[in-house]
């Protein structure tokens, strides 16, 4: 199967709401990155995690290498949070190769 799977494929939230996105891995990964692709198509780095949890404003991400998943939690959703969120991982056997999930399309509604 796919080495990286993201869920859900799509998500709608009202402004002010919160939700979590998930990224599952089929094998051991060295670390995970989360990106947002905005309406202009630009890919913006949100987080890199080798382990544990990181927070930045309304965003929080965790990485559990043992259980092979990572999450991205968005609270107090804003219209500008709309876009596609990707997780990307470095495959343990090849430190240079970075593989992306298919993304979660987030639509924040007014």
């Amino acid at each position: 199967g796919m080495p990286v799977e993201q869920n859900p494929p799509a998500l709608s939230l009202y402004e002010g709401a919160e939700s979590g996105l998930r990224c599952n891995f089929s094998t051991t990964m060295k670390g995970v990155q989360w990106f947002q692709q905005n309406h202009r198509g630009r890919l913006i780095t949100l987080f890199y995690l080798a382990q544990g949890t990181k927070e930045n404003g309304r965003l929080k991400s965790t990485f559990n290498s043992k259980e092979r998943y990572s999450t991205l939690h968005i609270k107090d959703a804003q219209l500008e949070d709309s876009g596609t969120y990707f997780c990307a991982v470095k495959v343990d056997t090849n430190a240079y190769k970075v593989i992306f999930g298919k993304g979660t399309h987030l639509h924040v509604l007014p």
Partner: protein
Amino acid sequence: EAAVTQSPRNKVAVTGGKVTLSCNQTNNHNNMYWYRQDTGHGLRLIHYSYGAGSTEKGDIPDGYKASRPSQENFSLILELATPSQTSVYFCASGDRGKETLYFGSGTRLTVL
């Protein structure tokens, strides 16, 4: 903020023609990557490089070549373009040991 510049931003090519997509980064990163993005597939890795003179195959290298003549520049070459290569192409760079990738703005390629 790392700077990764792709050119051209948009390109229309004919089937069988040669296309070269260029990428330049000004932050002395060791690693560079070429991805394509298609609906339903996300970003898929075509080629990558871990330094000047090196190119490695990614997950979908068929029909593409890559060239890394210098630390700053990484090109993607379509020797014989086909309509199936119509896509948005992204270049990225990253420093060895520092895991964050920095992306260019993308190149929209249409092969007629």
